[in-house]
């Protein structure tokens, strides 16, 4: 620790960990990108037959933007958090860990919650395939459940961070 640095006391505001910030970043991004995709699909559904709807390209773009967007939003959140520290060095610079056993436990519990949603989506997609449904419905059902699973995972993790367990 730098000797000139003021001693960090218990009264310093508690900021969220890096891992919690990434959870917020991913849920904000996924809701934005997936919401836009679903709004686009609904508008197309209302205006033309399913066979004429192009959905593969927009879905791949949505997935790509979700990944890139999560990274960019995490960077923005981190910069904002650093600015809010007003010159104090970050926990990592002080030699403190930025992710630990509690983060890993929360990650595992969040993943478990999302798997329940994913498994229901897979079951639904299987039923649609057995009924010989259009690939539009199968692909988009999986997409919707994937989105819901990501949101459920994030909400579960944020709840565990905030409420405890």
């Amino acid at each position, binding site marked *: 620790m730098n000797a000139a640095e003021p001693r*960090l006391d*218990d009264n310093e505001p508690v900021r969220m960990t890096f891992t*919690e910030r990434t959870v917020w970043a991913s849920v904000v991004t996924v809701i934005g990108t997936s919401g836009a995709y679903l709004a686009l699909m609904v508008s197309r559904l209302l205006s033309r037959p399913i066979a004429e709807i192009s959905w593969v390209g927009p879905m791949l773009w949505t997935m790509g933007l979700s990944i890139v967007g999560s990274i960019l939003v995490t960077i923005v959140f981190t910069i904002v958090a650093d600015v809010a520290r007003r010159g104090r060095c970050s926990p990592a610079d002080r030699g403190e860990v930025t992710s630990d056993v*509690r983060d890993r436990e929360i990650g595992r519990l969040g993943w478990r919650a999302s798997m329940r949603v994913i498994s229901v989506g897979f079951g639904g997609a299987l039923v649609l395939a057995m009924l010989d449904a259009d690939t539009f419905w199968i692909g988009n059902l999986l997409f919707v459940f994937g989105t819901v699973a990501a949101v459920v995972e994030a909400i579960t993790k944020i709840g565990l961070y905030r409420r405890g367990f």
Partner: protein
Amino acid sequence: MSPKPTKVTNRIRALRADADGMTQADLARRLGVTRQTVIAIEQGRYSPSLEVAFQIARVFGRPLDDVFQYEAPDD
């Protein structure tokens, strides 16, 4: 206020005060966890693993049940 999610209580805050005013950040650094985790443990919002609990007790040079107590439902 909602009830604490764990029935495990602890004396970490008092023990830190006894240890020359050890800060939460100091303890976190010695345990290899985030300060947020130390705060969550102190406030009873997170029950640490047995390994971390033993590490905390060792930092203060106390037996485990001097640091952590369990409020059984019948108590």
